[in-house]
Structures are given as C-alpha cells and as structure tokens.
C-alpha cells in the first residue's frame, strides 16, 4: 500500500505538492469502494440467485430462470422490488435502533473484506493481525441482531434475537480456538503470512498437515456456519417457527440488508477456511509475469471459496434444523473440549516437528481421497437403486 502511494506521488499523478497522507487517503477510499461496492455487495446479491438455483436443482425443481439468461438478473430484480416497497416502521418500535440494526449487521459483513487476500498483492490491507480482525469484526452481528430483535417490539423477534445472540457468542469460542492450531504452526496472524506458509499442492495445505488441524478445520467450518445463522443452525430465522425471527417486522430493503449480510457471510466463511486450511491463493509458479500470476492466484482463491460457498448451500438444502438446547450442547459440551484438544495436540506436534511433517500430509491426503471415493460410490449406488432420472444439465 505504501509503495503504491509512493509510486503514485513519484509519477506525478497528483501534482507536485501532494501530501502522502492525502494521497493515501484517496487511494484507500477508491480501493475500498471498488472492493466493497464492486465485489462485496454484488457478490451478496449473486449468491442469492446461486443459492436459489442450487437449492432448486437439489429439490428437483428449476429455480429462477426467467429474468435474464438463466435467471441471472433475478437478484437485481429482487433488489429493485425491495427498494420500491413501503418502508414500514412499527409504531411502537424503537425507531432509531430499528433503523440502525440492519446497518450494523451490514457493517459486520463489509469490514472483513478489507483483509481478504485475493492474491499475493491484491489485498486491501495486510494487517499483521488479519485473522483476528476478521473473526472479531464478524461478531458485530450480535449487536445488530439483538438491536433488531429488541427494537421491533415483538415477542417473536425478541426470541429470535436472543437466540441468535446466544448462538453467535457461543460459537465464537470453538471458532477462535480452532484458529489457534494454524497460528501455532505459522507463528503469525497475518492472512498473507498464513498463506505463504502453505504450499500450492494439497499435501502442503494445513488441512492435511496433521490430524488435529483436520478436525480443527471441520470445527471451524461448522462454527462459522453457526455464526452466520445458516442451517442447520438457522434458529434465529427459523421460518417455520418464528416466521422470520428477528427480522419479522422488517420489510423492503431493510429486510434485504439482513439477508445480504447472511449471503455475503458465506464468502467470508469460505475465505477464512480457504486461507487457513486450503492454501489460499497459492498456485504453482508457472510464469514470471506478475500480472498473470496474480490473476491465476485470484482465480485459485475464488475457486476454493466458491466451492465452500456451494457446500454451504448444499448443507442448507439438505439438513434439518437443530433445537436451541441441542445447539448449545453441541457447542459447549463437544466443540469446546475438542478444540482445546486440537490446540494442545498441535502444540505438541509443533514441538516435535517444528518444520512440519510432510509424510503426514501425504497420509492425510490419501485418506481424504479415499473418503471422497467412498462418497462418490455411495451417491452412484443410491442413484442406481432409486432409478431416478438425473438431469446433470444445470442450465435446464
């Protein structure tokens, strides 16, 4: 970032007497605007379309396919419709808090994009506490959701808000504890640092580095789903019980803000897992051209994150919801102890093999490939047995 500012001033783009801080500020604003408005928000919208298509194909339906090619502009149409709706603010509600709540939740979704490592040089701010910043900022959703639940002056919203607050706060613990194994192995909290410590090949990813990080990755993924209010943990917006939970009284664009935050959170969840465990943007060094390498790395990162987003949608379409007491039991009685065991196990592992044990990487990778093969075989078995006609064409 600083080099960029120096280069810009030196090239005279801003005139002779430009002060570095002014230039830096302008550059930051423009880059943030590009990332937030050009990447984050449209992504949240596109995920809504993608989720509906993925759901529909899993449910043997078609999904939106009218508005634009393959229904791709459906999210724009939805956005326009919601903006044109009447902005209803309940009479007895606490109007300032009611209006502010969606913005806080959007803030929690927008801020992590500042440290999103798209490629080796495409990162808005390479903080040296990157991953810590990410997890702590996503916790701002608690404030927004609680505000929404309380300010709506509606008992059902209140129940949804309290449930959500309890859920997010509880699952911060296993999520945070599951980041520690990676931090122990790399010694740094910065996103780029963690990615650079891994290699491009799967056996060099932290996912397969040792069994403790494998378990930690799974716990991190599930806890991140719980924090993002995704099924199987979507009690706060449990549609069949609480109508829309904390967002019941919201209508129009305010309602959409909550859900854009949820959809955008999918990318952030995927990004956290991809960075910490899947090697991030690492790509084999095939060319000396910096721009081409950056593009390849960005594509790699996006592919990994989008795959995890797809898995989140897949899980949401398949699994039922857990009850609130089962959710709490899962977190406190199972995940927290397992996360502690992971942390200590990784510490012991790092003490024994400070430079990592690549043999374990190969063994774990072989195990993962075997698991994937078993999964594929079972899918084929069930398809054959039920003699269902399967349409593989997603553009049906």
């Amino acid at each position, binding site marked *: 970032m600083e080099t960029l500012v120096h280069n810009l001033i030196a090239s005279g783009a801003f005139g002779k007497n430009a002060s570095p801080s002014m230039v830096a500020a302008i550059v930051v604003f423009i880059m943030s605007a590009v990332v937030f408005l050009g990447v984050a928000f449209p992504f949240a919208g596109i995920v809504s379309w993608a989720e509906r298509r993925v*759901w529909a194909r*899993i*449910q*043997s*339906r078609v999904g939106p396919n009218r508005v634009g090619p393959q229904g791709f502009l459906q999210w724009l149409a939805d956005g326009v419709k919601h903006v044109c709706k009447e902005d209803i603010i309940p009479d007895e509600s606490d109007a300032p808090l009611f209006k502010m709540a969606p913005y806080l939740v959007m803030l929690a979704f927008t801020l992590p994009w500042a440290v999103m490592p798209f490629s080796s040089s495409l990162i808005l701010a390479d903080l040296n506490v990157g991953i810590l910043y990410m997890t702590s900022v996503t916790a701002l959703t608690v404030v927004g959701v609680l505000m929404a639940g309380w300010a709506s002056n509606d*008992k*059902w919203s209140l*129940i949804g808000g309290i*449930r959500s607050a309890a859920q997010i706060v509880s699952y911060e613990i296993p999520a945070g504890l599951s980041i520690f194994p990676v931090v122990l192995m790399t010694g740094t909290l910065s996103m780029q640092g963690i990615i650079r410590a891994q290699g491009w090949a799967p056996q060099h990813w932290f996912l397969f580095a040792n069994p403790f990080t494998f378990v930690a990755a799974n716990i991190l993924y599930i806890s991140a789903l719980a924090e993002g209010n995704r*099924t*199987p943990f*979507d*009690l706060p917006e*449990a*549609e*069949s*019980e609480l*109508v829309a939970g904390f967002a019941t009284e919201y209508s129009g664009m305010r309602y959409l803000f909550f859900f854009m935050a949820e959809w955008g959170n999918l990318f952030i969840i995927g990004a956290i897992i991809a960075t910490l465990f899947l090697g991030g943007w690492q790509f084999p060094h095939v060319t000396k051209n910096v721009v081409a390498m950056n593009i390849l790395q960005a594509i790699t990162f996006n592919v990994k994150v989008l795959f995890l987003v797809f898995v989140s949608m897949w899980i949401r*379409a*398949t*699994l*039922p*919801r*857990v*009850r*609130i*007491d*089962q959710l709490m039991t899962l977190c406190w009685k199972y995940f927290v102890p397992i996360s502690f065991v992971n942390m200590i196990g990784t510490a012991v592992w790092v003490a024994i093999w400070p430079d990592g044990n690549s043999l374990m990487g190969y063994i774990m990778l072989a195990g993962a490939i075997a698991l994937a093969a078993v999964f594929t075989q079972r899918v084929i078995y*069930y398809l054959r*047995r*039920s*003699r*269902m006609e399967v349409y593989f064409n997603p553009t049906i």
Partner: protein
Amino acid sequence: MSTLHTEEMTLNMGPQHPSTHGVLRFVVRADGEVMREAIPDVGYLHRSIEKIAEKVGYHGFMPYTDRVDYVCAMFTNQGWGMACEKLANIEVPHRGEYCRVIAAEFNRIASHLLSVGAMAMDIGAVTPFTHAIREREMINDLIEELCGARLTFNYMRIGGVAWDLPPGWREKALAYLDHFDPILEEYNALISWNKIYIERLANVGVITPAEAINYNLVGPNLRACGIKWDIRKDIPYSVYPEFEFDVPIGDGHWGKLGDSMDRYVVRIREMAESSKILRQALHKIPGGPVLAKVARNFKPPKGECQIRLESGRGDMGWYVVSDGTGYPWRVHVRTGSFAAMGIIQKLSAGLMIADLVTLIASLDVIAPEIDR
C-alpha cells in the same frame, strides 16, 4: 443473592403461521424457550358442514365431505357412502368396492407423503418436502385421470363410485407403484435416518398407550404407542379382508415408545403397506358394475347408524340420523385430528417452542378436520 424476578411470556402462535397445519391458533405461555402450556384455539375453519348436510340432502352432501378433510378426501367420501348404505341396506357391487379401495389407498399414500414432507419442512429440511410433493403430484395426475379432480375428488357415490377406471389406467397405476417403492427407500436415506432429525423427534411428545386410548387418539398416532389396531383389519369393511397387509406399529426404537419418531416411522411404513394393498387390488379387480342402483331421491328408512373407517388420520366415525325424508336429520363426523388437538394442551408442558411445532406435525393435525 436474591432470586431474579422472572415472569412468563404469553405468545400468540397465531392463525397465520408458516408451520401450523392449517388455521390453528395457540396461546403459548412460555418461560423463555420452555413452555408451561400451549392452549389451542380452534374454530377458524368452522364452516358448519354438519348443518349444511341437513339442507342439501344425501346425494348433495358428497362434495361437502371432501372439504371435511381435503387431504384425505377419498376417505370422507367413502365414509359418507358407507353410512348411507348401512342406513338403507344397500350393497355396493364388488368392482365398486375394489375401485373404492384403490382410490382410497392411493389417497392414503398421498396424504402420508404430504404429512411426512410437511413434517420435515417444519423441522427445517426443505428438500424432503419437495421430493414428497413430486411423488404426490404423480398420484394426483393418476387420480385426475380417474375422477377429474386433484384435491377434492367427489369420486364416490352412495352405492359405489361414480366412474369406472379409465382404459390404460391400471397399467399406469402399476407403473407408478414400481416407481414409488424405491423412492421411499431414497426418502428414508435422505431424511428419516438423519441424526439431526432423529434428535429432534425422539422423546418429544411421548404418549403412553393408556393415555392414547383415553384421549381417543386414532390411526398412526395410536399405532405409534404400540397398540396394534387398524379398522381395516379389526372391524373389516369393504373388501379389505381379501388383501394381505401388515399393520406397522411403533416400537420405541429411537426413544421412548410413543414419541414423535414412532409416529413418523409408522406413517412411512404405512405407505409401503398401502403400496402392497394397491398391487393386490389392481391385480385382482373383478369385472362388473361400479355403482348400485340408488334412487335419485334417496330416502333411507328412519333410524340412525354409526360407521367407522380407517382414514389417513385414523378412525373416522360417521354418525347419521335419518328421519325418513330425503334430508338427513343429523350428521356428525368425529375425526382423528379433533382428538389429537385435545391432547396437545396436556403434552405441551415442559416442551420447548420448537418442539410444539414438531408435536403438531407428528400428530398430523389438519385444521378442516377439527373444525368442519
């Protein structure tokens, strides 16, 4: 430290709600997530169907019976037909009885599909619902060929059924059954043995057999408590004695005997049994007329009678009082959902709000049946 002052919340799970099966209202007194009591408030769908019977006459009441339980319309049709036939001592031709059984068993499969699909959706899994509806749509297509309607059939008449099976329908029905049996296995693999699903259903709303009988629970609700009782086997009517089928009962495999999981599994297994009955019926169906000769101004002799038949929701009791004219003096339907609502208030103490939804779904409560 002095105890914190808490008070219980009174919530209204109102008549418009995404998960109550029809228009039902519950006043829930809850202490946080745990309920103290859920008081049902019914009557939002009361259409005074029983009084309408006194105005429209015997033949004219048949379409109204569809609306008593629109998910299981064939059974209500059959019940009204059977009650009038018992009053006037009319015998339905053999082929007519077979058509009745075939239509009824298809309707049972459709009703159970809707029930288990909606239950899965209430628990949170949205996919099983669409898969169940996909299968139900195929049954609806078959029945549409048979009688022209997809939901409120008005297929049966006093003395038999209205129309014979169309040509080629038998083969289509058998092809559908061949398609359906493995689908049930796939459905089970998707949701029934899912760990989260079992955790949500097991030990929720346990009903002991003595309670079930005392509260007059019927159908799958009763069989899930371990009582092997099915009107088709125990007080046989129509041509059911000619078929071989089993009556699934709950066995407390995943939790206590008589919990929601048992009720769910009994419904899944009943669908397989209905499929067996259908195959036998479609193979054995005799020839002949389908409708007995019944006068257009049907005047049964003065008297009263009660019949019971096994509908999708259980034992449905029809009580008809006739005064010798062409209009019934009194008609009363006692449906399975009415009794099931009576037990919800007692079972709800100590459950969580999420469990109330599970309980209503597992008892397979349909609002029009309660309110008529």
